[in-house]
């Protein structure tokens, strides 16, 4: 069964990059679409793709990932918000490619297109 799982960035903040990536990938491989209130670093994204490629087999075809960043605001204000509310910047969605067909990410919004099944057609 597919499920959506919210992963607060605070839950993965203290992990090192490798642990963070492997945790997220483990969740995705267990048929979860995960939503994170933060963004991975560019190098972590590349590492996530690399490890995903190593994990591809007949059941796991890869991932779909999309993220949006908030518009650049005052850096001090942003830093303070992060400190007070433990929030990351932006949002990231990662899901298994067998379920998500495509993630369109126009600057202000993320659109999830699901793989078509016998019962359902394209959904937003």
């Amino acid at each position, binding site marked *: 069964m597919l499920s959506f799982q919210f992963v607060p960035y605070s839950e993965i903040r203290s992990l090192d990059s490798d642990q963070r990536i492997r945790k997220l990938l483990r969740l995705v491989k267990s048929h979860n679409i995960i939503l994170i209130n933060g963004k991975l*670093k*560019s*190098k972590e*994204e*590349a*590492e996530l*793709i*690399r490890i*995903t*490629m*190593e994990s*591809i087999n007949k059941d796991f*075809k*890869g*991932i*779909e*990932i*999309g*993220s949006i960043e908030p518009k650049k605001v005052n850096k001090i204000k942003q830093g303070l918000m992060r400190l007070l509310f433990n929030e990351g910047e932006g949002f990231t969605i990662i899901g298994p*490619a067998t379920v998500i067909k495509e*993630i*369109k*990410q*126009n*600057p202000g919004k993320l659109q999830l297109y699901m793989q078509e099944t016998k019962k359902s057609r394209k959904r937003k």
Partner: protein
Amino acid sequence: MASKLSFFFKKLLRGLFKKRKKLKLGLYGPPNGGKTTLANRICKDWLGEEMGIVSGIAHETREIQVKEEVIIKNKAGRELKFNLVDTPGIATKIDYEDFLKSGMKEKKAKERAKEATKGVIDAIKWLDDMDAVIVVLDSTIDPYSQVNITIIGNLQARKIPVLIVGNKTDLRKADLKKLQAAFPQYEVIGISAKYGKNIEELYDSMFKLV
């Protein structure tokens, strides 16, 4: 006297180092953007021979390909010498069933998928070795994809100079303005690698890049 000698030796060492170091110019991007078509265009224009096989099926290039000592010249007579590195397209998913749709047999499709995953891994590993990169994007496709953002973000994080090429401008659906709007901090050049359209402008920009 001692300081003059020290300066001389430093200059000599720097000169030797410069001669030995070969500039690596990488072609990066998602599958089917036209990296190999561009590599072939550059090699054909300056070496008189092509570099790799091109096809309409994704992940045609599944191994890193290097063409050594490509030398291009600009109008002012300046030369730019580099090793051209054509990389497999970077993707977040690879499904052998996609290859079946293009008429491939199951065994061959599975092999191709396996090679393609290895190709993506190699392309990512080679990022650290690049001195400058041309990101080749299909200008008929929405540029706001995580793969594009990840590639460009990684080059930025590694402080590698980047030039974005919007390929396939010969097609009616090409939208260079959208590409420029997606990556406003970079120079974006529209070309058709297949027909050589605007390729001179790209060569001029390559001098600025490195």
